[in-house]
């Protein structure tokens, strides 16, 4: 190691610290990517089969799109939620409480801010990739490819970052595993249902529509749909801005929550 000096004080959000945490995740991922990829592929496929074809038999088209295509584009947001928020909640809690991984990492030259940021970046990247799976599945069922689809990984990444930070925040504030039940039932399930994934929000009562506009999941659904079927200009830019804002706010709160938890 380099010799010590008073000037060797290290800064915030250093790349080597972020890299260190990311390497740990990547190496770990190499030991369980098969099961993760399996569930990330099978879940949206089941949704597509059940809702796309089940609904599709009753309703041929939704908002001018084939029902299968409508639901496939909506399911991207679901895949992002499932591959970011849930691993963030449960994974963070396990690593903190049972595996004590974070004790080991924070004993190295890594601060909580860097730890949380790197973990969220990693989960966002996973969400960016797995978020595209529903589109690939839908293409196998006849969804027409379009150039706009190329930005879907970026939309999924951005939303994934926010949901990962949301999950880390929940884990940071949670006293026990059971606490997650409240979040899943009272927060995630309602948001999931008023996101416009399976049916357009325009048919819902006014209050539900307003709720939809503050729901990051809804913005993700709409952005992906517009990316695939045709962008809507400023509205989409505003939606993307909302996702970025969601990510930034969740990021800072997640860091705060984990600092409370990890440093006493």
């Amino acid at each position, binding site marked *: 190691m380099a010799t010590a000096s*008073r000037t060797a004080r290290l800064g915030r959000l250093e790349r080597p610290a972020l890299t*260190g945490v990311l390497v740990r995740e990547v*190496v770990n991922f190499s030991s369980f990517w098969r099961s993760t990829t399996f569930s990330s592929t099978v879940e949206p496929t089941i949704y597509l089969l059940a809702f796309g074809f089940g609904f599709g038999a009753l309703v041929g088209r939704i908002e001018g799109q084939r029902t299968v295509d409508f639901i496939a584009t909506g399911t991207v947001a679901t895949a992002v939620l499932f591959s970011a928020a849930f691993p963030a909640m449960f994974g963070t809690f396990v690593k903190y409480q049972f595996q004590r991984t974070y004790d080991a990492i*924070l004993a190295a030259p890594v601060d909580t801010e860097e730890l949380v940021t790197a973990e969220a970046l990693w989960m966002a990247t996973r969400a960016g990739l797995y978020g595209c799976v529903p589109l690939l599945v839908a293409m196998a069922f006849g969804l027409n490819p379009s150039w706009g689809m190329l930005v879907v990984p970026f939309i999924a990444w951005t939303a994934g970052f926010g949901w990962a930070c949301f999950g880390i925040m929940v884990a940071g504030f949670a006293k026990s595993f059971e606490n997650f039940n409240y979040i899943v039932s009272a927060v995630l399930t309602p948001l999931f249902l008023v996101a416009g994934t399976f049916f357009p929000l325009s048919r819902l009562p006014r209050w539900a529509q307003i709720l939809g506009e503050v729901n990051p999941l809804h913005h993700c659904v709409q952005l992906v749909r517009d990316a695939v079927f045709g962008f809507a200009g400023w509205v989409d830019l505003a939606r993307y801005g909302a996702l970025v804002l969601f990510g930034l706010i969740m990021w800072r709160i997640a860091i705060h929550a984990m600092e409370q938890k990890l440093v006493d």
Partner: protein
Amino acid sequence: MSGDLAIRLRGVVKRYGAITAVNELDLDVPVGTCVGLLGPNGAGKSTTMRLLTAQSIADEGELEVLGFRLPEESKAARAQCGVVPQLDNLDVTLTVEQNLLVFTHLYRIGRADRRDAIERALKMANLVERRDSRVDKLSGGMRRRLLIARSLVHRPRLVLMDEPTVGLDPQVRQELWALIDALRVEGTTILMSTHYIEEAQRLADTVLIMSHGRAVAAGPPAELVAEHAGREALEVYGPPARLAEVEADAGAAGLRTRRTGTSISILGVDRNGGYSVDGERRPANLEDVFVLLTGEEIA
């Protein structure tokens, strides 16, 4: 760096609500020495360890590690420290080598030196043959050795070990002692907490005895024993009634005693010529010192 101290604590206090875990603690760890923190569970050893990596923030006092002030400059200090935690936190689904690889990144070893660092750590911990084994397939002793190896990949100047042999059988413990001793011979500075008397006595150049968050005595083990407990103690065995009788007699003769379950230890017998009773003489040890100073048992 102040003098040649790897660790310098002055008047450190850490409270958790109404409990004062560390109370006005002073601690010096000179460069190149092995210092043992000895005390019963709950004495504040682990809290002290956490303070040194800024995973706990002290309420009062000054802390310096490798010349860096804590908590402000802790990250720079941590870059040059190795930490062996009390609770195993290896990545169990990874191989031995992968665990080390992750830590070469966390401790910022350059690409060119990574291979060598891993090889050296594997050799040191005698795990070369098991490099491809998954951690959950290793024995408890091997996992401990890997934890130590992991803390050494970046050639730290200071190694912090929190109860390095807790919960291991005696054979494995001796294996680890050999490993820690090899480090010590190499000149690595070590701060080790333990509640095993023998461990402190064998490995530590100086021992700091802790009780209720305070340092109650500090010095080389042999000197502490000679100073506080004398050369010899007398161990008397017998039925409870007999033990009670011996205890009362010794007390009347001005001697300190302690119960050790099946026997009673009479301390400082070599200093008190007038007292005598049938029993086994044994060399006084650090535990006797601890009991004399605090009135508590360690183990």
